[in-house]
């Protein structure tokens, strides 16, 4: 049987605006892994379903995106500019 190497990367997750949580470093292969880790944090429960996500400052909409070491993931809560 082939050995399926999972290459986890160290990525930074930052929480913007009113979430009021300091950035964290986590290991993840894809955004799905990031989602799984963040769901363990009860302080984020009320935020995740309302938050959009940017990867290295570009908005993303696909959990299967492969992450690179040092990637920056931003969690963007509901907005109201103007």
């Amino acid at each position, binding site marked *: 049987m082939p050995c399926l190497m999972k290459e986890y990367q160290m990525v930074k997750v930052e929480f913007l*605006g009113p979430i009021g949580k300091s950035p964290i470093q986590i290991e993840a292969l894809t955004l799905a892994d990031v*989602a799984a880790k963040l*769901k363990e944090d009860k302080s984020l429960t009320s935020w995740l379903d309302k938050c959009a996500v940017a990867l290295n400052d570009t*908005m993303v909409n696909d*959990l299967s995106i492969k992450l690179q070491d040092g990637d920056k993931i931003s969690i963007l809560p509901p907005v*109201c*500019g103007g």
Partner: protein
Amino acid sequence: MELYQGSLDVKAIFARWLDEEAQSNYGAYIPFVGTIRAEDDIDALSFDIYEPVLQKWFDGWQEKATALGAVVKMAHSIGDVPVHTSSYVSAVFSPKRRVALELIDIFVEDFKANAPIWKYDVKQGKRIYAADRSTPMSGAGLLS
């Protein structure tokens, strides 16, 4: 795109943008000025901005405007903005009025929905997130 601490100097911004395009041969210039209303006993509104994503959002709109022969401009406040002063000015220049009238509408509406800016009421020195007036950005819920 221009970001300023506190209230915008709306007259200066309007005049400078007019001067910038004075020789560009645009027939229509439509600014939108957003001013803080006195309501709910607030003293001010306050804003957080995530500039890298805002800049990309704005650059995307500049591309769309260019494809229409138009130009967009935008200024926004960071931090506290007292009632009856302005936190937001955006504008469209275009050769003809129809493009300008349609573009200012969708530009301002998309700004409200997708610009990474967070608003807080300021009451008696406290900063309270305006959750009820805020909109999840497109793609929200990806990690839930």
